[in-house]
């Protein structure tokens, strides 16, 4: 494994202790669950922004059913379940939870934290008609309110200078992650899909400036590998794109299945924890708060936006750029937004001459056999069509 990747893992392992120490010194941790949450504002307030992003484990899902239901998205159940389980320190530490009403299932989870776990929360008013100017003003107004709440929490006034600094840090993250992903356009990518997605997920959890330093090292190393023609896969791997519901940190069941023998390469994705995380920059022009609002609202949309046509265009763009041969559309069970898009995704991407496999799963290991069969059959089709 590359040294910067090992370093990132160590930073992640030490992160809980780091945050605990910061809290002892009076620092505050503001956790969030949705990529539409402007972390820049949290950062500018002096608080520690942290996206609660864990998934892939069955036990927290079961525990989370106490406040949700069995026919419920496993990620959302975990969001509550990890807190109940008590093993993951990040879920015990938030001084405040920010959430958007991103989807129906997520919508009331901040209230569970507020009423049952006594954690102050704020739900950001996130319009779905993201292309309208009135929606931008509504969102901006809400972020101003949210900012006031943060200022009361941290006793630090959020200044334009602080926001501009936060923007530059997070834009740097986005630029670096974009460069990282671009190394995967190589014939034999220098980093696995698993490691690339993991690196992107860690951007939500580690200290942004420290993370950027290590990320830069990683990117430079990867770019050198590309120049030298070095890759981590077998020769001429099948080029696969992943799309679909949130890919949580730790939800690697499908990813491991695809890349297990290194003859298939996950070359890109459109996850909110992956490529959609960094595709759009904050345009540093005019009021920084408005620039942040504009970036978050009008970026490549999540399936919850109405309509989310721009997401399909983005997927097509990625298919061309990364020379994708097959798309695996992965939805979590009971994720209705992404699930409902499955037929449309297949129809739209078929027009690009690319096959689509739709798989639906959760955080249990019970369906690994079925998934394996379906994925293997899909790869056979792709191999034959080469």
């Amino acid at each position, binding site marked *: 494994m590359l040294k910067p990747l090992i370093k990132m893992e160590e930073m992640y392992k030490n992160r809980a202790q780091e945050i605990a120490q910061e809290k002892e010194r009076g620092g505050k941790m503001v956790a969030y669950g949705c990529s539409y949450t402007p972390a820049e504002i949290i950062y500018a307030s002096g608080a520690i922004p942290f996206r609660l992003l864990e998934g892939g484990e069955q036990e927290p899902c079961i525990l989370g059913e106490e406040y949700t239901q069995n026919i419920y998205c496993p990620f959302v159940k975990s969001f509550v379940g990890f807190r109940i389980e008590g093993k993951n320190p990040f879920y015990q530490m938030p001084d405040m939870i920010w959430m958007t009403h991103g989807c129906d299932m997520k919508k009331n989870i901040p209230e569970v934290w507020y009423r049952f776990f006594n954690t102050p929360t704020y739900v950001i008013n996130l319009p779905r008609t993201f292309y309208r100017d009135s929606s931008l003003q509504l969102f901006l107004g809400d972020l101003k309110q949210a900012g006031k709440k943060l200022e009361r929490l941290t006793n630090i006034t959020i200044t334009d200078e602080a926001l501009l600094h936060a923007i530059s840090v997070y834009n740097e993250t986005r630029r670096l992650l974009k460069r990282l992903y671009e190394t995967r356009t190589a014939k034999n990518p220098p980093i696995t899909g698993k490691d690339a997605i993991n690196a992107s997920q860690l951007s939500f959890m580690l200290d942004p400036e420290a993370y950027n330093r290590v990320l830069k090292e990683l990117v430079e190393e990867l770019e050198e590998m590309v120049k030298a023609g070095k890759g981590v896969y077998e020769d001429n791997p099948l080029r696969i794109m992943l799309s679909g519901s949130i890919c949580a940190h730790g939800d690697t069941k499908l990813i491991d299945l695809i890349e297990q023998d290194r003859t298939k390469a996950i070359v890109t994705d459109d996850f909110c924890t992956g490529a959609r995380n960094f595709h759009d920059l904050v345009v540093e022009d005019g009021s920084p708060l408005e620039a942040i609002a504009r970036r978050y609202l009008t970026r490549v949309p999540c399936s919850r936006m*109405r309509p989310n046509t721009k997401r399909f265009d983005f997927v097509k763009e990625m298919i061309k750029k990364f020379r994708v041969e097959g798309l695996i559309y992965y939805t979590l069970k009971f994720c209705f937004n992404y699930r409902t898009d499955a037929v449309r995704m297949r129809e739209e991407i078929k027009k690009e001459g690319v096959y689509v496999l739709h798989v639906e799963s959760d955080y249990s290991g019970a369906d690994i056999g079925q998934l394996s069969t379906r994925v293997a059959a899909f790869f056979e089709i792709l191999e034959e069509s080469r």
Partner: protein
Amino acid sequence: MTKGKVIRKTVAESLPPQLAGLLEELPYLKKLRLNMDLKGCIKILELGVSSPVSARKAREEGRKIIYAAMTVGGEIPIALSSPAFYVLYLEWQANLYWGVLKGERDFYSQSERYGVAREMCAWTKANMGSVINALWGRPDLLVAGCGSSCDDASKVFEILEWMGHKTYYAEVPYRRNPLFNEVNIGQDSAKLVLYTPEILEFQVQEYGRFKALLEEESGIKITDDMLRQTIRYYNRARKAISEIIEMRKARPTPLGAVETFLIQGCCNYLMGDPAGFCEAVETMRDEVAEIVERREGVIDEDAVRITFCGNPYLDFQIFNQIEDAGATILGWEGGPVLLTPIDEEKDPLLALAENFLGDYPPFGDTEGMIRHIISKSKEFDCEGAIWNVQLGCSHSPVEGSIIQKEVEKALGIPVLLTFTDLPGDHPSGQVTTRIEAFVEMVKNRRMS
């Protein structure tokens, strides 16, 4: 002691001649027990089930058809103000039309072919089936509430748009616990402001946008006078319904839950016929007043008094089941229960926005819903609450667990959480058992 009992028959048993043909394909509606002696009730049913006929007539008159879903604010009143449109609210129509949607032609399951998951909200699947099959005429415009209204509903409309249906997305702002609004910091609870000036301005602007779209579609300007006329219809209907609800405090309860729920729900869109709907509910009000005078009722005086809450409701049978178990539903929360009068003097779009933002509790956190449940339970002296939602609703399960805890804490009354399924798929035996046990438990509490 009940002086006289109002006998409620199933719709099928006492089918008025004008409904016979219309109800042929609606077995679930025919099974419901209503007071079929109420002319107002018959008229409401007639308005609902004759929608295909009304839609055809509207088309022949050159009017355009609008199907709306998840819009309980100003969009429908604005559309009803224009002579150019015939407006239906899909979910409520679906509630009446399950027989067709789930019958031989199975319009309901067709949505699965287009990506809608089997376990998804039944209403959304019904909505899709209605549109694809033009159940009440081919729609010229779909109006989908989105924003903080349900994902599932607007998602299905997005797919319909992709399939070629013209769609307008009506943004609904998120309702936050008023204590979280900056304007309320330091205020006492009686003076809580439920929305910020920015949200109000936003809502007015959105209604203006929608009005402009309709004017462009039709070439007919929607004037303030036209809007005020529609507002007056809404206020007439709301006044009559509020009076009926007030009269339901009489012991014994003079009007059943199905009838009450029907008029409250359909009040949202005046069933596409503002004058007809108002006349029907006013007739019903007068008829209920006579029942009260005669000291008659549909259920025993000592029936357990319940607040009914949750959202959405698919199968009206549950109301018959609750009453059969010995309870009467007096407090209501959930669904379109906007009954506050709309200001008739102010700028109409502003009046509609203030009314919607100020009253309608869902589409946000549970604080508003909890507040309504508590106030209705106190007003009607309720002894318990039944929260009911349909399987597949993605946001309600979490709301239910919160509501149960908070209402039990605030009022000391038990709250039963129930999930039900579609008419026909509904495990009514299980639900009945749970309701009966709950009612028995509440009755036993009276003795302690």
